[in-house]
């Protein structure tokens, strides 16, 4: 849905989105990486399990919640780093995991 307007940065890092390696740039966050993926969504809701995508990008809507290195966080507030894993969150989280 979104694309970079500049050439790939020479110091790019690799992150994993649902297991697939993708390139990312230092300074961006997990949400902007997710916005570049072919399918635009980051989680399904706990109530109706409908898809959601980043909405506000500034930490107030909580719609960009996903698992970053195993923890459920606002992806728009999660700066990327090499080797980071980003997994879409499916429905309600269970306590025991």
């Amino acid at each position, binding site marked *: 849905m979104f694309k970079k307007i500049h050439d790939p940065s020479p110091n790019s890092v690799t992150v994993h989105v649902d297991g697939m390696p993708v390139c990312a740039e230092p300074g961006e966050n997990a949400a*902007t990486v997710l916005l570049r993926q072919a399918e635009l969504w980051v989680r399904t809701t706990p109530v109706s399990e409908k898809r959601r995508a980043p909405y506000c990008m500034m930490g107030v809507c909580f719609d960009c919640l996903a698992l970053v290195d195993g923890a459920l966080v606002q992806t728009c507030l999660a700066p990327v780093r090499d080797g980071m894993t980003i997994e879409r969150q499916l429905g309600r989280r269970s306590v025991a995991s």
Partner: protein
Amino acid sequence: MTRRVDLLIVGAGPAGMSAAVAARQYGLDVLVVDEQPVPGGQIWRNIEAVCGTPREKILGKAYSEGLWTVRRFRASGAAYEPATQVWQIEPGPRVLMTRDKIASSVEAGAVLLATGAQERPAPFPGWTLPGVMTVGAAQIVIKTAGQIPDEPVWIAGSGPLPLLYAVQLLKAGGRIAGYLDTTQKGRWMSALPRFATAAAGAPLDMLKGILWLATLRRRVRYISNVSEIEAIGDNAMERLRYVTASGKSETVYARLLLVHEGLVPTIHPTLALGCTHQWNSDQDSYAADLDCWGETSQNGVFVAGDGAGIGGAKAACLRGEIAATGIALKAGVIDDQQAARLARPLRARLARALSARPFLDSLYRPRRSIFVPSDETVACRCEEVNVAGVRAEAARAGRPGPNQIKAFTRAGMGPCQGRQCNYTVANILADAEGRETPDVGLYRVRPPFKPLTLRELATLDSRDAG
């Protein structure tokens, strides 16, 4: 570990950075904490990395000007802790926060909340679908990642920000499928009496706005007086329907729609602290009650910047400096006369920086359906409660308030803690119960007002918890 500082500033945007620079000049010991990894706030987000790249030209002069403030802040000697989430503020004042999974508390002689604004929640049918984002979000994506939509995008909204973003997007090589101007018919006439003050006080800003409007009208499909929008789709947005005030309706292919209906001050921290708030009828929002130095009803807690009322970056910087002067006065570093003398030129510049505001507030007053949306519209995004659900409970005896509605429907109980539905629920109740919105009020904000894990909470020392 509890630390002690003279001044704790929450937020490293225009107000927070300017206040930090001024407070350091008064010799105060200053700590600035901020959610983002780098200083700048939302308006100057990621500016240190963007300056000097082609993106700087796309974003424009008002953006690059922020670098000067960021550099002065970096050189000010204020301690700076980015990537920090503040989740509770208590009288004292004492501030509880988390950084890098470790919670801590800070006791401060004064706390300055420079937490800015958020885009006004603007509910319409389909606004939760992937493919619907705010204009501010799309602009943040340019600033932080150098990204633009990869296909023609629809923009629907009212205010200076969507005009600015649309022009930036064209400069970046992006394409706009259509611009739906939701400014209500007749607003120009209502705003006209305030135009002269705006043009006299901020002639360049007004000229810039007129040029943006002219550029868009020339280069993209521009539809005025749009009164209704709807995003349609199943897993993601597929179509956009809009209706104009004259009743013309069209349904178009659309995979990305950017919306914006103005800004509202960030008030979660001051609500959590129990500060008194005042309803601003020109901006249809609340802000904390402040004295002439920006101090709230809670001793030692100050607010500066858009959190004190929407005024833009220039006004935010000045409010930050005024608050720092008030804090220095309270700390006994300067006396009343010195403070008054130092603040006088700042106040004059602040009045000028705010001179276009009454005109903009009047012109871009959102349409009624933004406040009281149609029944099928989702009011609470987190808990997926629609307007009809809130109305059904509002019909109960006893004129329930927002906190009862929260208990009955779960609206406001999700992770955003009412940041996206507080005004909507208040407005629906006011409408259903024949009351005014400020008479209904907002949800009670409870700690922690940003989520933290039990593991993080457990890192607080027992002495901190006291």
